[in-house]
């Protein structure tokens, strides 16, 4: 019986690719990987590192296994794993991913002492009153008046924005950057239809809503069309 190759090494224009079979056992895979790479070591004497990409197909590799594979390959002198590509993710990760990319619509008034937290984008139909807080992993859009605290991109997204029909927040935060309202706000300033974003100087800037069209083209989710 001809033994199937569990590990195939390919050179592509992007560098070396190790294709690992997804139907054999993990232990078998490790053994063969070890053998294959050991056989190659003698010819490689150059100092500089070669980065390789691992393609594991429909195999789910845990965080531990990823480290193990990286370690195993790293030991073979000048190979270093650049990326591990798998076709599968766990249900949990999928749910998380979906949640982070979802726009959550909430229709209520966030009153003093209340905190509203969503993993993805927040579309609030209502106001955020002083003392109320809204937190989102993504962007925050307030259809009413934002008079409390808003924190967008709370999982470390610098590109997140905050937009409100009436922008009079007591505090704004995008990722880790904080911006406090001036102590005296002129009463006659309307602050209608404004947005907040992090500018090149890493400061929160407030501007008219329309600047986002240029600054954050990724906000458009519509695919195709005109």
């Amino acid at each position, binding site marked *: 019986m001809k033994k199937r190759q569990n590990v195939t090494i390919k050179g592509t224009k992007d560098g070396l690719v190790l294709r690992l079979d997804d139907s054999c056992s993990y232990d078998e895979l490790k053994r063969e990987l070890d053998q294959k790479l050991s056989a190659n070591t003698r010819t490689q004497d150059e100092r500089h590192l070669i980065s390789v990409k691992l393609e594991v197909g429909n195999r789910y590799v845990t965080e531990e296994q990823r480290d193990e594979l990286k370690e195993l390959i790293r030991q073979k002198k000048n190979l270093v794993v650049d990326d591990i590509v798998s076709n599968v993710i766990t249900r949990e990760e999928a749910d998380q991913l979906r949640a982070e990319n979802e726009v959550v619509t909430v229709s209520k*008034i966030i*009153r003093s002492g209340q905190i509203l937290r969503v993993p993805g984008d927040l579309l609030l139909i209502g106001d955020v*009153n002083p003392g109320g807080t809204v937190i989102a992993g993504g962007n925050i859009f307030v259809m009413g008046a934002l008079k409390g605290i808003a924190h967008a991109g709370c999982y470390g997204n610098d590109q997140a924005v905050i937009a409100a029909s009436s922008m009079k927040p007591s505090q704004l935060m995008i990722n880790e950057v904080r911006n406090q309202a001036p102590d005296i706000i002129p009463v006659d300033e309307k602050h209608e239809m404004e947005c907040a974003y992090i500018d090149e100087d890493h400061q929160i800037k407030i501007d008219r809503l329309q600047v986002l069209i240029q600054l954050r083209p990724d906000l458009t989710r519509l695919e195709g069309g005109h």
Partner: protein
Amino acid sequence: MGEAIVITSGKGGVGKTTTSANIGTALALQGKKVCLVDTDIGLRNLDVVMGLENRIIYDLVDVVDGRCKIHQALVKDKRFDGLLYLLPAAQTVDKNAVTVDQMKKLMDELKQDYDYIIIDCPAGIEQGYKNAVAGADKAIVVTTPEVSAVRDADRIIGLLEKEKHMEAPKLIVNRIRNHMMKNGDMLDLDEITEHLSIGLIGIVADDDEVIRASNHGEPIALNPNSKASIAYRNIARRILGESIPLQPLEEANKGMFGRIKKFFGVR
């Protein structure tokens, strides 16, 4: 089966007790059978405002602990022909002496015998507030045209909205000083209602008579000539389902000359 209405505010000193006493009085004047319940245990004063302090024998804690029957603890207001009763708060224990379940049970019992139960809630959002709200079907939030009072009202409304057994709360703006509102030194009515976005059930002007009447143990609602009294009577009628427009604040400030002109029909 009656309904229980809790009068609350979050902040202290905005006029919860005065409002409770006067709404209760005004409802009794409309011929409804009313029971006032003071849940400010440890700091009772609804009895003082009602002028019933001297006649207290048992209190709310005695009732829930089973030391007496409800009817023994209820203080009858003799000015009304068996229409107005007060269940006073205890003075010697604190708010933790009563539990939420005990309050619910008490309210259910009272609702059998009364058309309206007006619950005077203590300030704050701790146990006392929780007890007061537990057995209520409706809530009235009292605020004054001050930023701090409105902020606390907002907090309270947020908490009340979480109570699934209750209807959406209604708002009373108390102690309005018209000249200050006009100057912009006080928040104006639109600002308050827009901010809190709940239905307004009444506005009460700041009136020295209210304090004078409270100190005499006679709720202002008994005096038909005071503008605050009319405001409370209007609130009572709105509770009964009548639709009555808000009193214009202007009129109250016209003074003697304005009143004479009005008497003669001069505009």
